[in-house]
């Protein structure tokens, strides 16, 4: 499976590791993934905005047919979680899918996402799990 290039991954580390979003200084809209120009008002003045590490599950699905790199993690639970002003798409771990419910409290955890076998690169990032 093809992964994003090392330089691109490197540049995205703040958003993958720390959930660093961007907020428009003019209209206040928050973007995650971060943008360089505000699609809402057109302003280029954006500042870093730290997303909270707790939120609420909006919706989720269970992927039973997964890419080859994720075979060991099959099935993958993918969900939308509301973190402060934005919804973030990500993997849900440490949870039985049949026990998940829209609206439940979730927290962010830092995990290994995938090991790029060809180049030996280990990619880390955020995942979600139900709040104990």
């Amino acid at each position: 499976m093809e992964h994003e290039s090392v330089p691109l991954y490197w540049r995205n580390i703040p958003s993958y590791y720390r959930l660093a979003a961007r907020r428009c200084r003019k209209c206040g809209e928050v973007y995650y993934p971060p943008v360089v120009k505000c699609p809402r008002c057109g302003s280029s003045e954006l500042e870093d905005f730290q997303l909270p590490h707790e939120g609420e599950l909006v919706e989720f699905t269970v992927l039973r047919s997964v890419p080859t790199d994720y075979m060991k993690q099959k099935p993958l639970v993918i969900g939308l979680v509301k973190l402060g002003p934005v919804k973030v798409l990500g993997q849900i771990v440490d949870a039985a899918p049949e026990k998940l419910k829209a609206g439940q409290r979730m927290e962010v955890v830092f995990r290994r996402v995938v090991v790029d076998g060809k180049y030996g690169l280990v990619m880390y990032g955020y995942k979600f799990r139900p709040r104990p």
Partner: protein
Amino acid sequence: MLDSELVSDPLRLYDVGPMADGAAAAILCGRKGVAKVLGMWSSANAVPFNARQDYDVLYSAREAAERAYRMAGITPRDVATAEVHDSYSILGVLAAEALGLAPRGGLLASLRGGSEVRANLSGGLKSRGNVMGATGVYQAVEVVWQLVGRGPFKRVDGSIGVIHSMGGVDATSTVVVLGL
């Protein structure tokens, strides 16, 4: 279909259009063609998937259809047949609704109520297969053949057909109105 294996809840194997090889060709000419291009529009939904408010409307398809219909001077009632981008079964339903062939959220109820929705008589991406870049041309050929009654299709009742092609999940859509 309901017994096929789960791919991603609640979509099962036969909800997913298979990747396929294929080729289609259409000849564009100035005059004396079999059918005319009456309207055409492409629209994009710039909002990323995670930031959307609604997940049951294909905005790019809806806008492209409205503009293409206006250009062609038609309404959804004039559409005798449509070929829509159903790479997954639910996308076919949402596309038909975006094209105005049924109200929002109402396609299945319309079908149950006995209304006829003439969409994807070819079988669509799910049955023909998703031939990626060639899919849109396939759709154009299929719509024209349905309008003139060339086999394997029966002639549809009407002279206007529509095709809808989409990139991503509601990222970009192109709608073309074809008429005899």
